[in-house]
């Protein structure tokens, strides 16, 4: 079989069902319908890691747009106290789906599935991942899960009251026994999360074995780019923690279907056990959201400072350290739950140890700037915003890890502020940074810098206004998941809503710019930023089918920049 090795990866090529594809392509020469079929086939059945990455990109940004609209609905509803334009029931479903979509369909899979898929094999000098077909299956499971989540919005039917459209509620945490007894369509939403979990597991499994088995022979463990290290740590979390949420949600469904009694207090179960099992996964999951982002930012900061990473080894160790310690802190979400006093103390104690490797990372990034030759291109601006916003997110997390303060702000808007700073300011901003960094490589085009700067500035201001005001209103005692609030909180809620409007404007500009540049952008050179990882030095822009023209030479490390050496 011959490959179109010289063409960009997105032009026609062989796919899984190669024979069928070849036939279709042949017929497509005369028949436009078959031409279309062949084209479709080459995308939705392609096992090429780059195409799968693009598929994820498209899917994920669509979901992100939905999640954003839901977030905006929240902000509009909260503009005034009382019911403005959606009922309490609708509001409850809206924030539940906002959370589920943002977490399971956007930040958790975000960087690994889009950029990990696209660049991990290139970074390690391989042609694809270890299990390309499993990779495609992961995408299908992802889409299936997303579809079911969307379905759960509409198919709910409560026979006893004859009400259709009982969209799921309960928050993305689905605490029992509310979730085991709610009349809303929780089972289906939870089942969707279950499927998405397995999609995530398979991606993680694929990455771990790819990194172990397929590295370029010359690339030793300590020669890997930090992005790859980030994916490696993350992938282990996905493999070892995600099954716990799988079984927890499965048990939740069993509880609803058969009344097995393990979470429902009315049957003798312990609702706190549900929380343990939920957070055993979901705390590590928050590091799934941010560790790949840390990897991306490490690449960006090094490239745009044109200097080697400060303290590569401690960067690696801290990344793995965060992933490791992150497993054992889950119950800091449960200080008020009725857990024993002893375990409150234990978990508060362990929680703080996550901050230490994170501190190492932040300080190493700063030291990497020192004596660099810094170019503030859009990816760098986003990368540095990550450091700033994520630090705020992390710092607010410290007050949550402390018991006495957490007892006050637990389940208030302070927590909402904290996690938007970490997830959106960390995970989300890292996605934007990665997009601006790798966009030229992925699509072969440059984008407009001025528009990118303006969009970023609006985003940055809006972000801090929105989530900063949440932190403050939370400290004043405003509980979260509230459809209505006391008049005294109105001022800050309105400030927040204004912030969200600014932020939207910014993000629309950012995405508009990237989208338009697909058609109007200048052709991108092979290495626009002067990066030293393989995708820049050895791989054409855009990459070709098997990534490289020939097996990469790999005669330099990932951070061997020109410049003085000491």
């Amino acid at each position, binding site marked *: 079989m011959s490959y179109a090795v010289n063409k960009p990866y997105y032009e026609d090529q062989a796919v899984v069902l190669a024979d069928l594809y070849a036939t279709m392509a042949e017929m497509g020469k005369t028949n436009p319908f078959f031409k279309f079929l062949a084209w479709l086939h080459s995308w939705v059945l392609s096992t090429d890691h780059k195409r799968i990455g693009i598929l994820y990109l498209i899917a994920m940004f669509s979901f992100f747009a939905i999640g954003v609209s839901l977030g905006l609905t929240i902000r509009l509803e909260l503009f005034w106290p009382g019911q403005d334009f959606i009922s309490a029931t609708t509001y409850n479903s809206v924030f539940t789906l906002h959370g589920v979509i943002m977490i399971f369909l956007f930040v958790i899979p975000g960087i690994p599935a889009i950029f990990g898929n696209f660049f991990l094999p290139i970074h390690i000098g391989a042609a694809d991942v270890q299990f390309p077909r499993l990779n495609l299956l992961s995408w299908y499971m992802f889409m299936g899960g997303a579809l079911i989540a969307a379905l759960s919005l509409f198919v709910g039917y409560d026979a006893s009251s004859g009400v259709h459209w009982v969209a799921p509620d309960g928050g993305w945490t689905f605490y029992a026994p509310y979730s085991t007894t709610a009349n809303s369509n929780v089972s289906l939403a939870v089942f969707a999360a279950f499927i998405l979990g397995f999609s995530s597991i398979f991606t993680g499994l694929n990455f771990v074995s790819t990194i172990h088995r397929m590295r370029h022979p010359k690339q030793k463990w300590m020669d890997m780019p930090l992005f790859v290290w980030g994916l490696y740590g993350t992938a282990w979390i996905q493999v070892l923690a995600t099954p716990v949420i799988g079984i927890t949600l499965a048990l939740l469904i069993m509880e609803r279907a058969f009344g097995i009694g393990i979470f429902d207090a009315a049957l003798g179960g312990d609702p706190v056990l549900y929380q343990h099992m939920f957070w055993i996964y979901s705390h590590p999951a928050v590091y799934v959201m941010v560790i790949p982002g840390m990897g991306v930012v490490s690449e960006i900061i090094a490239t745009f400072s*044109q200097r080697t990473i400060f303290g590569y080894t401690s960067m690696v160790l801290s990344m793995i350290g965060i992933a490791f310690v992150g497993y054992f802190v889950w119950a800091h979400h449960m200080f008020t739950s009725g857990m024993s006093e002893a375990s409150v103390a234990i978990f508060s104690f362990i929680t703080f140890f996550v901050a230490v490797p994170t501190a190492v990372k932040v300080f190493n990034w700063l030291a990497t700037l020192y004596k660099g030759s810094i170019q503030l291109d859009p990816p760098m601006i986003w990368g540095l915003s990550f450091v*700033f916003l994520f630090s705020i997110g992390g710092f607010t997390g410290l007050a949550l890890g402390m018991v006495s303060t957490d007892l006050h702000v637990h389940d208030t808007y302070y927590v909402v502020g904290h996690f938007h700073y970490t997830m959106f300011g960390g995970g989300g901003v890292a996605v934007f940074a990665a997009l601006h960094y790798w966009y030229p490589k992925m699509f072969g085009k440059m984008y407009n810098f001025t528009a990118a700067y303006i969009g970023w500035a609006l985003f940055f201001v809006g972000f801090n206004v929105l989530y900063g005001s949440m932190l403050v209103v939370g400290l004043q005692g405003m509980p979260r998941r509230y459809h209505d609030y006391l008049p005294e909180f109105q001022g800050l809620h309105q400030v927040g809503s204004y912030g969200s409007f600014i932020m939207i404007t910014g993000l629309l500009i950012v995405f508009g710019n990237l989208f338009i540049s697909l058609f109007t952008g200048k052709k991108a050179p092979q290495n626009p930023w002067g990066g030293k990882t393989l995708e820049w030095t050895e791989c054409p822009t855009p990459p070709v089918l098997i990534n490289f023209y020939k097996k990469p030479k790999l005669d330099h490390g990932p951070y061997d*920049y020109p410049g003085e050496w*000491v």
Partner: protein
Amino acid sequence: MFSGLSNIANQVDFAFVFVFALDAIVLVGITVFMIWCCIRFSRKRNPVATNIHGNVGLEIIWTVIPTFLVMLMFFVGMDYNKMSQAPKDAMRVKVQGWKWSWAFTYDNGKENDYMKSHEGKDVPVLTLPVGKAVILDMTSSDVLHSFYIPAFRVKHDVLPGGRISNLWFVPNKVGVYEVFCAEYCGEAHSKMYAKVQILPQDEFDKWYGQAPVKLDPTMLASAGEKIYSAQCAVCHSIDGSRKIGPSFKGIWGRTAKLQGGITKKTDAEYISNSIKMPNSEIVEGYPAAMPVLPLNDAKIEQVIAYMKTIK
């Protein structure tokens, strides 16, 4: 901040100030350094970078110092009202939460009063004497709730299934404060308000000692209205509109259609049964969503008296 409204409020506020001050210092440091680098080492000013591989000394410093700082935070944070340290002679109040209100019962059988909320609804009040430790014994009759008094910096989840969770504190100042439910519990989670009223000891004693007023028949209905407003209004309207449960409009003496094709006259027995065993008979077309509410016979009588007036 530092209003000292409860025994721990000032400690908690101190903990906040402590951690935020540290955070602010480090954050400002980080940001200033970042911006300084971007200017000082911009490509224009510094076209050739210097590759520094690392510096073990520095890296140890910025591992050890944060470790030290976070341990400090941990210890500062451990300063809270541990249940094991609640004073033995503290007064005890039973708290019951359900979808979507609270009820407070005292040792002598006294029950809570009601007070108008900002929306003009009647909400239950937890009345307590100033300066005296109180332990709340909290249970829920349906799902998780969380009893939260922001002014006192205390919060604890309320669990169903017969588990009693406790919260204790000493209110320091006379006044009226808000109580929220801080754990998502369904549609009217955000309406699950209550209030704490802190009285001087003598006023409290007077209130506490008051025998329940013997209501004369004319007052039954208005007492019932309070109960309705505080406990039933989230689910039952009086204007005929459908909420979670059937409307109370014209409830007295109508014929209830129940699931399974049974019909029943809504007399006193039926209503009292609906309240005591809400799920034994389900009205056709409605979910079995009504919780078990802590109403004694006297209160049920009041509610019924009120129902008779809803035409």
